[in-house]
């Protein structure tokens, strides 16, 4: 038992060390952009926080988690209990498991309990209906093309991208020329000091090619945000936390609220991972992202449902 506690504490420390690493690397970022941000953004607006949930897979009922509805409810319960209300929430796709109307309905009923404005991007599980209309009718009406869009909040420019459509044999996620052209136009007039958040379902960076955990033309999107002083890329799809920092860009993937998936290459396939019942909730969770004015990096804290 003691050993367990010690291990848990150590893991907590590691989690914090991971967060700390983000900040430490921050010191290596070109200071001119830091000064730029500080100079153009008044300090008076202290900070704002938004949440990320992902991969709720409503309708999934296999052994890895026979009650995906229940764990989403727990996640939303945790969000409701937060002492400070976040500004809004993003859902990075795979809302449902099989794109059934009843699954979308159930997801909406549960997620709306959070009382937050929610911005969505689709996962491949949300576009399985034969006519591929259900997701767009519910969440993507204002989007361009296949449903991509951008908005501004708290001085940050948010871009929701769709990288689960028109996939090519042998490939991974895909943005496509139309979306990349739109992205270039969308970013063109923004100043380099504007913090940018890109979010999409499949990771925009290549995590593990042989499982398709990446986006074929993700590098072209990243090229377009290179000139910005602070870029945060938020994804789901892989049902586990992964992060890295490259130059001005911080990459982060969120946990699922439904079931965990194995670490890259750790199993025969990326399918749902069955873990002991008492471990499940430590591998599911939500992410909270805080933007503090005058700082380069958004602080991301992943909170498991338990532990």
């Amino acid at each position, binding site marked *: 038992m003691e050993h367990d506690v010690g291990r848990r504490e150590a893991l907590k420390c590691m989690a914090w060390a991971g967060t700390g690493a983000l900040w430490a690397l921050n010191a290596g970022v070109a200071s001119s952009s830091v000064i730029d941000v500080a100079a153009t953004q008044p300090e008076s607006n202290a900070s704002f926080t938004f949440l990320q949930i992902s991969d709720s897979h409503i309708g999934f009922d*296999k*052994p*890895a988690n026979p009650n995906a509805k229940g764990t989403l409810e727990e996640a939303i319960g945790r969000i409701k209990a937060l002492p400070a209300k976040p500004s809004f929430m993003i859902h990075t796709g795979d809302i449902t*498991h*099989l*794109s059934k109307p009843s699954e979308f309905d159930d997801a909406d009923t549960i997620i709306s309990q959070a009382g937050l404005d929610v911005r969505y991007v689709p996962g*491949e*599980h949300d576009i*399985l209906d*034969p006519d591929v209309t259900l997701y767009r009718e519910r969440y993507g009406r204002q989007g361009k093309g296949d449903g991509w869009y951008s908005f501004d909040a708290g001085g940050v420019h948010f871009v929701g991208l769709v990288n*689960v459509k028109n*996939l*090519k*044999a*042998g*490939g*991974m996620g895909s943005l496509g020329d139309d979306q990349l052209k739109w992205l270039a136009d969308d970013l063109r007039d923004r100043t380099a000091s504007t913090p940018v958040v890109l979010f999409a379902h499949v990771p925009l960076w290549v995590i593990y*090619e*042989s*499982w*398709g955990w990446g986006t074929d033309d993700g590098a072209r999107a990243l090229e377009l945000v290179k000139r910005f002083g602070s870029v945060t890329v938020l994804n789901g799809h892989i049902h586990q936390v992964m992060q890295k920092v490259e130059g001005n860009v911080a990459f982060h993937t969120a946990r699922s609220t439904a079931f965990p998936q194995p670490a890259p290459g750790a199993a*025969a*396939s*990326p*399918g*749902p991972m069955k873990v002991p019942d008492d471990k499940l909730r430590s591998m599911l969770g939500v992410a909270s992202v805080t933007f503090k004015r005058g700082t380069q990096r958004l602080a991301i804290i992943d909170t498991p449902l338990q532990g």
Partner: protein
Amino acid sequence: MRMALLAFAFGAALACVVAPLAAQTGGAAVVIDNFTFAPQQLTIKAGTTVTWTNRDDIPHTVMATDRLFKSNAMDTDESYSFTFSTAGEYSYFCSLHPHMTGTIVVEGVGGGVTR
């Protein structure tokens, strides 16, 4: 070599005619397990119906690279069938997990393997 080529051409030409007959008798299976099509390459005679069955906990699809055939999403234990009436090589993939790829080689009767 020349003989083999001739035989293949002959088989391909015949395929359309022979297909309806062969389709009544032939069936072949591809199993989807661990995000893999097995067998990854399947050789059949023209007229054979191939049935894909998904054994994963995650839905998959079967889509011809040239869009000749496309299944709906198959949940666990669901199947999709397509009858190949014309000789040729048909590559396909899962449109949800495109790193999953497979090939069906359809041989005309004249040039094909007989069992």
